[in-house]
């Protein structure tokens, strides 16, 4: 429970920081709102021009995209690790983290969190709702629970992959370009994997399993029974990748060398 309280305390601190720069905050809110709207319009317009891709209808593709935005938004809120190596390892902020009595990974998550990214959840829900309405999808009473489970699995999976990448910073002195590269690959998970060739499909399912954040969980709601096996291993993949990420992180902390003096 200690960590729960700590989370809210950090969140309060974050809000206070934001409120310290009022104009900046207003700016940010407006620009976030605009970018979400633009995003929404863009997606709807672009997908109007595609019809069927390998057995997936236009509406289904929009639905997958909408679903994907939700775990992605939650992930971006908590695993904002883009500057981790620069700030915590090269500049040595990790020293400070390590002298405080709470788990180091948790502290980094709290210090770098970016609650504004949660706006993506609403965009995602609107897109999903729109596509779902057009597809006339039925919603069973347990579907919301399955939805939450699948979203969380996706968040943990992404989290695990990015924790693992951030952990590389403990072992490699120089900055690496891995993170942007993986970031580009992850967008492939937003589209039905069977439109890709076998090799890419394999990679997106088992190596960098980003398909479990978009296509596979959406398949459940779209009633694509041929993919249900993947739907049910989504939580497993989430846990496995998260555990691997945390394990690598802990190994990295043991290897931490500190910066300067």
């Amino acid at each position, binding site marked *: 429970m*200690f960590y729960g*309280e*700590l989370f809210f*305390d*950090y969140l309060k*601190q974050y809000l*206070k*920081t934001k409120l*310290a*720069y009022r104009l900046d905050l207003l700016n940010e809110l407006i620009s976030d709102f605009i970018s979400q709207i633009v995003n929404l319009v863009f997606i709807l317009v672009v997908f109007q021009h595609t019809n069927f891709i390998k057995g997936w209808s236009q509406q289904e593709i929009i639905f997958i995209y909408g679903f994907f935005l939700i775990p992605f938004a939650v992930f971006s809120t908590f695993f904002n690790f883009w500057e981790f190596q620069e700030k915590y390892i090269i500049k*040595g*902020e*990790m*020293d*400070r983290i*390590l*002298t*405080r*009595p*709470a*788990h180091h990974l948790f502290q980094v998550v709290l210090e770098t969190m970016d609650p504004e990214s949660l706006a993506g959840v609403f965009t995602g829900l609107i897109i999903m709702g729109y596509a779902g309405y057009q597809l006339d999808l039925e919603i069973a009473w347990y579907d919301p629970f399955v939805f939450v489970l699948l979203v969380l699995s996706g968040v943990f999976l992404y989290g695990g992959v990015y924790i693992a990448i951030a952990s590389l910073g403990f072992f490699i*002195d120089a900055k690496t370009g891995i993170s942007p590269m993986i970031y580009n690959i992850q967008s492939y998970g937003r589209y039905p994997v069977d439109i890709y060739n076998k090799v890419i499909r394999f990679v997106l399912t088992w190596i960098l399993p980003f398909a479990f954040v978009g296509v596979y969980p959406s398949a459940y709601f779209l009633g694509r029974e041929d993919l249900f096996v993947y739907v049910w291993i989504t939580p497993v993949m989430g846990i496995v990748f998260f555990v691997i990420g945390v394990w690598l992180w802990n190994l990295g902390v*043991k*290897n*931490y*060398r*500190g910066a*300067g*003096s």
Partner: protein
Amino acid sequence: MYSIEVKDLTKEFKSYRSREGLSGAIRDLFTREFNIVRAVDGISFNVKKGEMVGYIGENGAGKSTTIKMLTGILKPTSGSIQVNGRDPHKQREAFVRTIGVVFGQRSQLWWDIAVQESFRLLKKVYKVSDEQYQTHMHEVIEILEIEDLLNRPVRKLSLGQRMRCELAAALIHNPPLLFLDEPTIGLDVLVKLKIREFLKELNARYGTTVLLTTHDLTDIEALCQRVVMLDEGKIIYDGELQELRENWGGGKSAAIEFTHRIQLEQLTALTGHLPIRWEQENPLKFRAILESNEMTVSELLACVAPHIEVKDFRIEEVSTEEIVQKIYQKGFTTYA
């Protein structure tokens, strides 16, 4: 009972070399050459509870590396550490509750929010109860005179104000052991004095053990009876500061200025029976170096003053800074 027990502590770093030119860079991709650097080389020492110890050494001597191992940040390559009865790296979270850390070059406080907000958050992190916080922090805030700073954002504080707040932040959980790494770096004399006063008070009132690294030896002179001196990862001196001064300080000397020109021979003739060596600075100024501790300065004056008129007289004592400087320049063994 010891606060810190360190035995045969060693820390090695791999340091990679990069080869020259583009072809070198490409070869570095596949095989990298590295040296193993021993930052800390088999040191052992103990610190008693309530002691204030100065940990000194040149840049790169291994001070920071030692402190980082003692605070659980770095994992030792070999050797054992027990601080407050725990292994700092293995039991990190339980351990760090029992220490306070101030890195002069790094801030514990949140930059954009008021000081007291940072305190409040740290209070939660360290699970300090309200009562404990009230009674203890009230005192700390009072002695450090930071009451008026509490509702200002950290970014608007001067370095001296910030440092005092940093100290208070490190003491929120009233730790029995405090690590200070360069706490007075860049501060003006008044703030330095205030911080020293505070540390003395803290030590007297709560019996807080303090391990201090600093480049400013006057800090150490003001606070610590004991110094541990480090060079190239090894301890070269561990003992009382007073002893270091007595044994390695060299003799006293006195600068004498006369009202008119004097020949060196005249002086040596007058003081020939005393263990004194004369040096001439200019025709009027001389320096007498007392080569025995038993000899008093008044003996010297008694020999000279009746015969030659003395305009000015000044006793010179070697500062700790000079002693340490000499030790590093000449090496400890040759100097000893």
